[in-house]
């Protein structure tokens, strides 16, 4: 795209309600933050947050498929350092109708109110991303809206194997259903990689009531059925407007703090002091978490109990375990993901 065209697209989007900063509704679209695993470190989890912050694969009813996921710097489109990579390590031998594998990204309702969903001025949004796969074909992408249990979808084509391609898809706004203005799921982006026929038969080109049959409408790529298959995602952006504009690169700490609202791994030593027969400490999260988080010790002394109080909105926490003297709890992780 020429500079003049880029400027025109940007102005067009601003006129449609976008902004010049913080325009990307997706958090960590450049995959710069990966608190759970170091760069280029794989995880075999196929249904959990495990590497990239804010992005979660989901496998449904698969009986053979095994994958690895990682944030990698071994391949990325020009302008990006990292990508989110999936490799099939055990193929799904025969795709059953109820089998599904997808990548999901959840967006909190509090961050979506400017889309004006539920009224006639509901805004269009444009999803852009870079993708690379060893398998060419037609892939589905859909947006699920939790408030009204609604869905809309589209497809894109990977034309050349093992080649980075940029995709842009514009979705109309939902004029009939508002997004609840709270910390629950507002929108969910679904990149479909593998889908049985239960998920592809329902037309899904306009906002309508959710049905599983709509989730992967139009998807035909037989990804996952060979150990030759891989899939990379990079530069993910969802913005108000009908045009995809240049990716908004953020300072690392900006993206990190956005991610920390949903998951935070404390890497600083935490020391406890004696309180009666317990060892206690208080610490604060870098930002208020989305909700009261689950807590887990990453390394160090495993506590007999571990409690969080007044976490939202005060962003503080309280840890204890039965001990006559204070002990160190080296690291903890807090999870308030959607």
């Amino acid at each position, binding site marked *: 795209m020429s500079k003049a065209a880029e400027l025109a697209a940007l102005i067009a989007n601003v006129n449609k309600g976008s902004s010049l900063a913080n325009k990307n509704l997706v958090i960590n679209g450049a995959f710069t933050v990966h608190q759970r695993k170091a760069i280029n470190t794989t995880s075999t989890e196929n249904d959990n947050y495990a590497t990239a912050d804010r992005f979660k694969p989901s496998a449904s009813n698969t009986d053979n498929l095994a994958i690895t996921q990682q944030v990698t710097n071994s391949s990325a489109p020009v302008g990006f350092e990292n990508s989110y990579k999936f490799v099939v390590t055990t193929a799904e031998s025969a795709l059953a109708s109820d089998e599904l594998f997808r990548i999901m990204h959840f967006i909190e309702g509090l961050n979506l109110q400017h889309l004006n969903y539920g009224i006639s001025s509901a805004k269009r949004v444009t999803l852009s991303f870079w993708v690379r796969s060893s398998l060419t074909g037609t892939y589905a992408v859909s947006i699920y809206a939790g408030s009204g249990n609604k869905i809309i979808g589209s497809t894109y084509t990977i034309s050349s194997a093992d080649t980075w391609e940029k995709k842009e898809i514009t979705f109309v706004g939902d004029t009939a259903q508002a997004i609840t203005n709270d910390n629950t799921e507002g929108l969910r982006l679904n990149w479909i990689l593998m889908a049985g026929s239960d998920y592809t038969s329902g037309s899904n080109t306009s906002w309508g009531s959710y049905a599983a049959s709509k989730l992967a409408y139009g998807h035909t790529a037989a990804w996952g059925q060979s150990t030759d298959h891989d899939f990379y995602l990079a530069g993910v952006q969802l913005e108000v407007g009908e045009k995809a504009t240049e990716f908004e690169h953020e300072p690392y700490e900006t993206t990190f703090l956005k991610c920390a609202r949903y998951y935070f791994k404390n890497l600083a030593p935490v020391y406890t002091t004696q309180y009666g027969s317990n060892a206690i400490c208080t610490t604060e999260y870098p930002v208020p978490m989305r*909700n009261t988080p*689950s807590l887990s010790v990453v390394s160090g002394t*495993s506590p007999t109990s571990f*409690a969080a*109080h007044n976490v939202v909105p005060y962003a503080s926490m309280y840890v204890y375990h039965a001990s006559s003297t204070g002990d160190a709890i080296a690291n903890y992780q807090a999870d308030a993901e959607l």
Partner: protein
Amino acid sequence: MNIKDAQYMKDIEGKKIDLIKATVDDKVWFIPLDEGNRHYAEIQRQVADKKLTIKEAD
């Protein structure tokens, strides 16, 4: 989400239940009794489906 060994835990004063200790995907987590928490929501689903029981607090 693979959840096992779920047990209610009391607060530091030992007076009221305020979280669940459970092994989630082979990792021990302390989970608040908050429906907005994804681990707690999944525990509630599995209990309703009779796939999981939660032990009383010690």
